[in-house]
């Protein structure tokens, strides 16, 4: 048992950290978020050059053969910089779908595009009635000719406005809330019948509601099994949760650091407010939560390849904890910044908003606590 990073992992971290320090100052990020595009395609090319887009892929597809720890290292540093480029939707999620379920042809065609930075993907899975249940799918995929016709409405697909391919869950059989009968499809964002209603998100990303109106796709659009896609979706989402936990670790650490810095300089009643014991204890509690976030980010990364039930429980526990911790650390970071914490000019609010929205993505604390309970309280141990 060992929790240290390899030399290569440390080099990777340093290179991402350097990129963030050089290119992702608070002001620079504000410009990106305000811009018409909402991201920097040139940065994306630099990610490709740094090998970040290749990290988790096999060498035969131009990848570097990294694993969950490499993803964790990258995402933690992205979290510290509040990087908005679509790494999670493309490399982590799109990449995982292709790695786990892509046909040889799909991998050969698409993985090199991801690696070289010419393809962004977006995972369009949520639906208005489904809340956080991945299996609650109304969007339909009907067999027609050699392929499928898709109809439906997908909510808040992150990075859809900049994506070349959408990864869409759709019902191929069964009723709306059946576990069986879900297929995963690769859909061109520009295909006929696809309409995006795009918008910024409160945490500085871009997303869209996706309407599918008789969208025709070929049989080669299918990722994995036509009527048994749920285990694949669950696996990919657990990997996404691990990546998100790493990002959360970066965000949580940064919120504590900003708060420590602020309270050490901010004077009130003749001394830095960091000298008030009530605030010291609050920051000590924030620190305890940060330590737990770090532990959970490590834990879930290390358990991604564990047996399914253990992997699921690990992801559920991590997601539940990061939601709780993000709330505690974030709310107190704002509170301890006082009025300044309420302004858009201070970095802390932006981290708080990201932490808050990360809690929602892929299911909130309540959802995952319940999921964890179902996985761990079944039979006698």
């Amino acid at each position: 048992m060992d929790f240290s990073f390899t030399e290569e992992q440390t080099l990777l971290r340093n290179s991402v950290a350097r990129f963030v320090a050089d290119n992702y100052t608070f002001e620079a990020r504000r410009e990106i978020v305000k811009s018409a595009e909402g991201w920097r395609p040139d940065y994306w090319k630099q990610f490709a050059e740094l090998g970040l887009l290749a990290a988790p892929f096999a060498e035969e597809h131009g990848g570097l053969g990294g694993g969950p720890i490499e993803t964790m290292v990258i995402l933690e540093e992205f979290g510290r910089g509040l990087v908005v480029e679509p790494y999670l939707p493309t490399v982590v999620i799109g990449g995982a779908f292709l790695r786990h379920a892509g046909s040889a042809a799909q991998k050969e065609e698409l993985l090199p595009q991801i690696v070289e930075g010419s393809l962004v993907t977006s995972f369009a899975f949520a639906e208005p009635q489904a809340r956080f249940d991945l299996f609650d799918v109304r969007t339909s995929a009907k067999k027609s000719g050699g392929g499928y016709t898709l109809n439906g409405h997908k909510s808040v697909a992150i990075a859809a406005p900049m994506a070349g391919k959408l990864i869409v869950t759709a019902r191929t059989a069964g009723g709306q809330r059946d576990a069986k009968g879900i297929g995963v499809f690769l859909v061109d964002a520009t295909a006929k019948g696809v309409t995006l209603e795009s918008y910024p998100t409160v945490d500085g990303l871009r997303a869209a509601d996706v309407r599918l109106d008789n969208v025709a796709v070929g049989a080669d659009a299918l990722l994995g099994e036509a009527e048994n896609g749920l285990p694949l979706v669950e696996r990919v989402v657990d990997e996404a949760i691990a990546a998100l936990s790493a990002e959360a670790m970066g965000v949580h650490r940064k919120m504590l650091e900003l708060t420590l810095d602020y309270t050490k300089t901010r004077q009130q009643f003749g001394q830095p407010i960091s000298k008030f014991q009530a605030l010291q204890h609050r920051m000590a509690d924030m620190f305890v939560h940060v330590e737990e976030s770090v532990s959970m980010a490590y834990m879930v990364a290390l358990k991604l390849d564990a047996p399914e039930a253990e992997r699921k429980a690990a992801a559920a526990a991590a997601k539940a904890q990061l939601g709780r911790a993000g709330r505690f650390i974030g709310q107190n970071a704002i509170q301890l910044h006082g009025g300044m914490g309420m302004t858009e000019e201070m970095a802390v609010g932006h981290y708080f908003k990201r932490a808050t929205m990360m809690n929602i993505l892929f299911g909130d604390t309540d959802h995952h606590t319940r999921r964890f309970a179902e996985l761990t309280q079944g039979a006698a141990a």
Partner: protein
Amino acid sequence: MDLSFSKEDEAFRAEVRAFLEAECPSDLRGARIYDVGREGTLRWTQILYKKGWVAPSWPKEYGGTGWSPTQKYIWDEETARIGTPALNGFGLNMVGPVIYTFGTDEQKKRYLPGILSGANWWCQGYSEPGAGSDLAGVRTRAVREGDHYIVNGQKTWTTLAQYADMIFCLVRTDPNVKKQEGISFLLIDMKTPGIAVRPIITLDGGHEVNDVFLENVKVPVENRIGEENKGWTYAKFLLGHERSNIAGVARSKKSLEKLKSIARSEMAGGRPLIESPDFKRKVAELEIDLLALEFTDLRALSEAAKGKPPGPETSPLKIRGTEIQQRLTELTMEAVGYYANPFIKGGPGRNEPEIGPDYAIHSAPTYFNTRKTSIYGGTNEIQRNIIAKMVLGL
């Protein structure tokens, strides 16, 4: 002990409710001050002004209603019930009472009518950069030159200064005495040369507060309230006044009803969210908290009705009132799931096609914005200091 209202009070409630239902314009009901703007606020102010009900906490002689504490409580309940828009509280609840209590006859004649009619929008020049909860640490200087003061300095967190005709300011007129002793209280016309307003955008993306810069601003001495260097006395009086209705029970009850209705339309696990055990519990816990707050507030009201002035006992109302408001906005955001995420500017119903349900649109920004309630008006940490020192004698 008796919970029931008197017959007279019940008749009063009926009258108030009938008036509000008939007269409050439907486009203003339940709207935020952001959405209705100065125009909408003025429209509603004028309706109340004509009825003579614009100033429930003012004495009759100055144009107030002369209502009892119980009547004011009923008024708060009924206006919250219908969702009337907020008024310009800096005029009506803050500087107005200072003027009629400490002002000269001339000042009363000149300022009170505009406050009541809504013709003049007031803002507050208390906070300064870096001062935080230390309100007496005023650094804005006012130097007497003949029959004027020359004012230089900066105010911050000035709510809706972008609408304001007038600002009431704490300024330092004597820098050589204890910090509470050299402060004066000035009324300043916002059109005076030398005043500049710079928006502060808050983390919800809204423009509610501002920096106000004062550079060689000439203020007639007759615009000073009371004595020179006694401004802290008037400021403290005002802070006491600000505490009334600090618990916000009636508004929170309204928000709770809205939350329940949202949770009835949102789905979770294939059933309405309100039936989900976790959400059900969280709403119930909040409603129980609100019930406790309501009765703590009623107990304070019962004391007030006997003529007891509000004291540090109001601090629990501030702490729990703001915690409950924050929790309400948090649960509302939670209820809408993914549709908390889109950042849609403008009011409900204005985007085409629609992104998510109307009630979801501002849920996250409102949650972010409401974090301020435990910071402004004396942070909740300051309130705990007050309880420890003034109530518990620690």
